[in-house]
């Protein structure tokens, strides 16, 4: 067990953002958190990294739990010159070997000397992933890490995440809107809307009425999309 929320509620001002969250993250598990805007996904992450304190309930963390955090698409002001290596060395310094290995794990080897501003959206997300991997985290948090990437780019990114989990053995909790994309890489899906609406294996959740009412989906269209993903095979040779 890496992290365990016991009946956690978070209030910001007088507004209740999260209520009665019971959730535990096990080792090497990949969890996807789904929910509409304002459902408290980012608040949940902020509570995980300790930026917010639960108003009620408690959070237990494994002693010396190391968390790697990949933020939502991040904008770096173009007046700030910074190379990939310098960015990776912030705040703690690592040897250039370690940085190169982390970049390799994230799928972008050899980018170290590039300016961050010159990277494509997909490359930058992978650099953020590499930076999160440097500290050898037990738990990787991804906050809509593929926002702004195209369909293929985000599918590639999630495959990389699954690969990272296998090679480095860390658990992953990610926020995503794209259940059909992350489906195959996820062990457990949690639907959040201030509280946990439903959770379970991706196939179970995508078929559940709570999931459909949460996203206002027409059942047939979602099923069609799901089937399309699964039976869509063709060769690229």
């Amino acid at each position, binding site marked *: 067990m890496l992290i365990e929320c016991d009946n956690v509620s978070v209030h910001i001002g007088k507004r209740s953002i999260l209520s009665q969250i019971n959730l535990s993250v096990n080792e090497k598990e990949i969890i996807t958190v789904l929910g509409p805007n304002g459902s408290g996904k980012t608040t949940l992450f902020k509570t995980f990294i300790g930026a917010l304190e639960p108003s009620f309930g408690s959070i237990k963390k494994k002693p010396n739990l190391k968390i790697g*955090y990949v933020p939502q698409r991040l904008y*770096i002001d173009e007046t700030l*010159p910074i190379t990939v290596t*310098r960015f990776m060395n912030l705040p703690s310094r690592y040897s250039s070997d370690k940085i190169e290995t982390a970049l390799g794990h994230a799928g972008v080897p050899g980018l170290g000397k590039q*300016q961050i501003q010159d990277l494509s959206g997909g490359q930058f997300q992978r650099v953020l992933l590499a930076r999160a991997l440097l500290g050898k985290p037990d738990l990787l948090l991804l906050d809509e890490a593929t926002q702004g990437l195209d369909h293929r780019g985000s599918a590639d990114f999630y495959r990389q995440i699954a690969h990272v989990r296998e090679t480095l053995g860390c658990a992953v909790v990610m926020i995503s809107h794209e259940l059909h994309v992350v489906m195959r890489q996820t062990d457990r899906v949690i639907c959040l809307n201030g509280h946990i609406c439903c959770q379970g294996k991706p196939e179970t959740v995508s078929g559940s009425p709570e999931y459909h009412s949460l996203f206002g989906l027409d059942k047939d269209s979602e099923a069609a999309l799901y089937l399309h993903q699964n039976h869509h095979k063709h060769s690229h040779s």
Partner: protein
Amino acid sequence: MFDDFLVRAMLAGVGVALAAAPLGCFVIWRRMAYFGDATAHAAVLGIALSLAFSMPIFGGVLLVSLLMAITVSSLSGRGFAMDTLLGVMAHSSLAVGLVAVSFLSGIRIDLMSYLFGDILAVGTTDLMVIWGGAFIVLGLVVWRWSGLLLSTLNADLALASGFNPKQEQLFLTVALAIVVAVAIKVVGVLLIAAMLIVPAATARSYSGTPEMMAIIAACIGAFCGLSGVQASYVFDTPTGPTIVCISALLFVISSVASRVSFFRRSL
């Protein structure tokens, strides 16, 4: 050697430039260019207060700039955008300062010398204040560098690495207030913002990393301080504005040069 007023002026200019340059980088990166302006405007109120209570100018200015800095940084993110807040605070504190000055009967102050600085009148005590302030500011910046840089890049990344972005912002605003307080004699209220921003903006196109940008900005600032004092002596021009004119000129030259070399590379 400190007897010569030109040498004192140069030392003062270099001291301010060294402290202002790295802060100027953060001011640019965080898009708070107006912040230097606002704190500098508030300083007029500080001058009025120090004259009214007959305390040293440095103390009054530091007090008001700090108040201003802390108010703005604690109000930001609570319903008003940073530039709105700065606009409100800057103009109202400048106005209150000017009104307060008019109440000071019996004292006639040369407001121009505080608006544009009077670097040639810098004494040995002033030099000690300037260099003391510069060392404190540089120390603060070096000590908080990683946290400041990471919070400038992204507040959440900083939080996840165990830094408190609000606290880092406070360090930065306090450092800015100190720079304004020590620089007011040298370049004056109106030109402090220029000393913060222009050397850093000039350094941008020649820097690959944030550290390099800060160091290059400090060198450019120091050069402008030295050559500005000399040029103002030779051409008999006001010294503070001359320093800023030289840094503006360098900015224009370097922008044109980097455009030209970019154009050549892409041919």
